[in-house]
């Protein structure tokens, strides 16, 4: 019989760290990654040799980027592996670090995401296509925006409210790539990208790093870690796309089934969630995914946005970090940075963007292909 993470040894996040997400620069990836890892070690108050295993999430750096970075922490000989899973690379690395600790193979493991903005190279399958070369991600989501708007009678202004909220949150996040509040007029008046999407409704792909250290109870005891700041991972689910009925949006359908499994593992309902960090690379995605996760019925997302229910201090703070739209989406780090934000919120250490009395948070990423990863953390 197979088991879920919750049935194995408890796993806790004990350290988090970032290198700020930023516009592409001349800085090599090595110092970006090292900054995040050293911040996570300092946060956990442990030394590098305590880390028994490392998962390096990166999509755009090229083969075997980990060792040339990690060796500068002191080469301990501990195992390392690289994880590429498109936008969900970081979430996948986190899942496997958790599984390694939960299984008892390690007591302390690191998931680190680091990336630079490099050209994306997709594999050649040998199967032809009509015009897929003309349909980059922002057009995929521009099409979904058009469908959502028609099906639910939502206006371009309604959907753009997601960006207004997430830019407002990002303005309070020192690790965000975009740290500026934006009015609805600014969002709608920006450069037109595809369909009704404007540039401030699209993630600004940049560079950066995020690191999360996980540990077992034995590891927490061994290194004298403050158990009061440790946040347990109570669910971890990864799924990939199936065949859905013609016309069904696969991103939302995949999110729905993945989130349902994760909530069941954690024995929570959507109403129990205080924090959600989700894949809002484009505004319409946030509406799709909060509805798929079950915060509200299909088509009611705009009403929640308008009512402030998704704000910090509302019913459930969605993307308090600023999300992919404002915090940014350097690919490899993104899913790990989401975990870090939820940990800050559950510890009560999120400062100006603290959501009151946060006890349960859900992290969600989709990746081209398509894959979906959902984690739940609780204090």
């Amino acid at each position, binding site marked *: 019989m197979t088991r879920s993470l919750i049935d194995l040894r408890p796993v806790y996040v004990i350290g988090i760290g970032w290198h700020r997400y930023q516009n592409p620069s001349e800085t090599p990836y090595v110092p970006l990654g090292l900054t995040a890892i050293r911040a996570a070690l300092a946060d956990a108050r442990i030394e590098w040799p305590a880390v028994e295993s490392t998962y390096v999430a990166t999509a755009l750096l090229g083969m075997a980027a980990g060792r040339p970075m990690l060796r500068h922490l002191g080469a301990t000989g501990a195992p390392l592996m690289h994880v590429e899973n498109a936008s969900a690379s970081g979430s996948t690395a986190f899942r496997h670090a958790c599984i390694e600790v939960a299984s008892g193979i390690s007591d302390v493991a690191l998931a680190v995401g680091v990336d630079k903005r490099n050209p994306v190279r997709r594999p050649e399958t040998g199967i*032809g296509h*009509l015009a897929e070369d*003309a349909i980059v991600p922002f057009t995929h989501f521009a099409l979904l925006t058009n469908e959502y708007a028609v099906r639910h009678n939502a206006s371009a202004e309604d959907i753009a409210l997601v960006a207004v909220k997430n830019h407002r949150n990002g303005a309070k996040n020192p690790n965000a790539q975009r740290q500026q509040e934006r009015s609805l007029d600014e969002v709608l008046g920006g450069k037109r990208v595809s369909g009704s999407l404007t540039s401030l409704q699209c993630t600004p792909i940049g560079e950066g790093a995020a690191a999360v250290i996980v540990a077992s109870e034995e590891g927490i005891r061994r290194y004298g870690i403050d158990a009061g700041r440790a946040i347990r991972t109570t669910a971890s689910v990864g799924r990939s796309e199936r065949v859905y009925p013609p016309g069904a949006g696969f991103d939302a359908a995949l999110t729905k089934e993945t989130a349902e499994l994760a909530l069941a593992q954690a024995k929570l309902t959507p109403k129990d969630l205080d924090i959600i960090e989700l894949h809002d690379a484009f505004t319409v995605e946030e509406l799709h995914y909060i509805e798929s996760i079950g915060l509200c019925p299909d088509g009611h997302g705009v009403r929640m946005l308008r009512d402030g229910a998704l704000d910090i201090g509302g019913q459930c703070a969605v993307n308090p970090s600023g999300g992919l739209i404002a915090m940014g989406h350097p690919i490899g780090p993104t899913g790990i940075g989401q975990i870090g934000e939820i940990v800050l919120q559950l510890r009560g250490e999120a400062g100006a963007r603290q959501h009151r009395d946060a006890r349960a948070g859900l992290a969600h990423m989709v990746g081209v292909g398509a894959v979906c990863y959902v984690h739940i953390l609780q204090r």
Partner: protein
Amino acid sequence: MYPAKPLKPGLYSVAAIDRDGAPPRLKGGRCRCGHVFFPMQAYGCERCGSHGDALTPCELSASGTLLAEATVHLHADKNRPAPFTIVKVALDDGPVIRTLLADDSAPVTPGQRMTGRLVAVGQSESGETVLDLRFSRAS
């Protein structure tokens, strides 16, 4: 008639070129399990995993209903200068495809009927007119 050749002969039927005005047919496939897909491939069925003889070519009508449209304002590839419009069409025969809206199509909104046709998109080195599939609002 001028000599003409399709840009992507693996995806739509060339017979249409000889019959002026006849709608092209899309080269899809059907699995023994009933799953209909586009384009034809022999690697294996996405629904059930069957391969080999289980997958047979199946021509699909180039007509359907519009699910969504997006006019692209920014596109990095200089071979395809923006603006252009992408349409997502649920074919009457089952699969959902995404392709280009014909430049001369009337404006479209979801729910409308759409049809595909071959339109001239350039000239080959040997002087043939190169045709590619575009969808437009059904008249």
